């Protein structure tokens, strides 16, 4: 049975097409989900793509969090549905309180757009179980508000529980605390990542094929293979 992975389109989403393509290249069936429809169509996992949902009005992700489809995703994530939030999707997951902390304006105020090395710190999540602990991967980063912040107690808890999923290596592109590029929830099914694995799945368009691992991980997770 082919896994069905939902990709949500919000008004202002940009990377929903690339995310759906990455899902297909990884061997799953992408299912396009619409923000205004409170319906998940029985998908096995969900990707919240990058972009500027609702024009980033108020705060990035603040309004998308209240979209009808998000109510279903928040409930399903609580029941174990794998959810990957990329860039704006990460911001939405924080605004929805599925992940702790917040993403703020890059400290240097510049939009940062480059290929970025990340170190995978946690391979125990639904989205990173095909990587080796400590593996370095090359994935594009492109954000203006990617500076991850949380209070020190929350950061310590994330570290202690192994919930820092990836860190920036070779230069922190946005000032994120403790070089954090990706985190997960306690159960490991919800992951938020600021760089864009869906842009690193084909030699023609990406700097590497390293991003594919996130999408093949969820397939491995869904068939119940040990992480």
């Amino acid at each position, binding site marked *: 049975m082919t896994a069905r992975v939902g990709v949500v389109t919000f008004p202002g989403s940009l990377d929903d097409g690339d995310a759906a393509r990455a899902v297909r290249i990884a061997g799953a069936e992408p299912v396009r989900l619409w923000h205004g429809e409170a319906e998940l169509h029985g998908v096995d996992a969900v990707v919240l793509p990058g972009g500027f949902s609702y024009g980033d009005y*108020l705060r990035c992700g*603040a309004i998308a969090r209240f979209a009808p489809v998000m109510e279903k995703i928040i409930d399903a994530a609580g029941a174990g549905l794998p959810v990957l939030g990329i860039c704006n999707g990460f911001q939405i997951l924080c*605004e929805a309180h599925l992940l*702790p902390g917040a993403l*703020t304006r890059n400290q*240097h*105020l510049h939009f940062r757009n480059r290929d970025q090395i990340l170190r995978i710190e946690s391979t125990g999540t639904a989205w990173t179980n095909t990587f080796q602990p400590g593996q370095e991967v090359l994935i594009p980063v492109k954000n203006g508000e990617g500076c991850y*912040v*949380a209070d020190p107690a929350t950061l310590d808890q994330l570290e202690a529980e192994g919930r820092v999923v990836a860190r920036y290596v070779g230069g922190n592109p946005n000032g994120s605390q403790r070089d954090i590029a990706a985190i997960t929830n306690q159960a490991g099914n919800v992951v938020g990542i600021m760089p864009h694995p869906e842009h690193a799945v084909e030699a023609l368009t990406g700097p590497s094929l390293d991003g594919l691992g996130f999408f093949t991980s969820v397939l491995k997770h869904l068939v119940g293979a040990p992480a």
Partner: protein
Amino acid sequence: MPRVVVDVMLKPEILDPQGQAVANALPRLGVNDVASVRIGRRIEIDFTGEPDLDRAREIADKLLANPVIEDFTVRLVEADESAEARS
């Protein structure tokens, strides 16, 4: 009818790079006695009936501010006062 004004500010411990950029520009205006600038957001809310401060606080807490990084205050102003403030 009084209007509800919500002021949202980054918490003091959160770096405000926008405010810093403005502060760094001030010397170019010849202003050298400003220690810091913080930038926030003012939201004006008009209820259809009597202003409901409790409801406004709920709106601020759930949507207008992100309590992880921001504080907010809620207050009533006369509608003409807020017009004056803009002039």
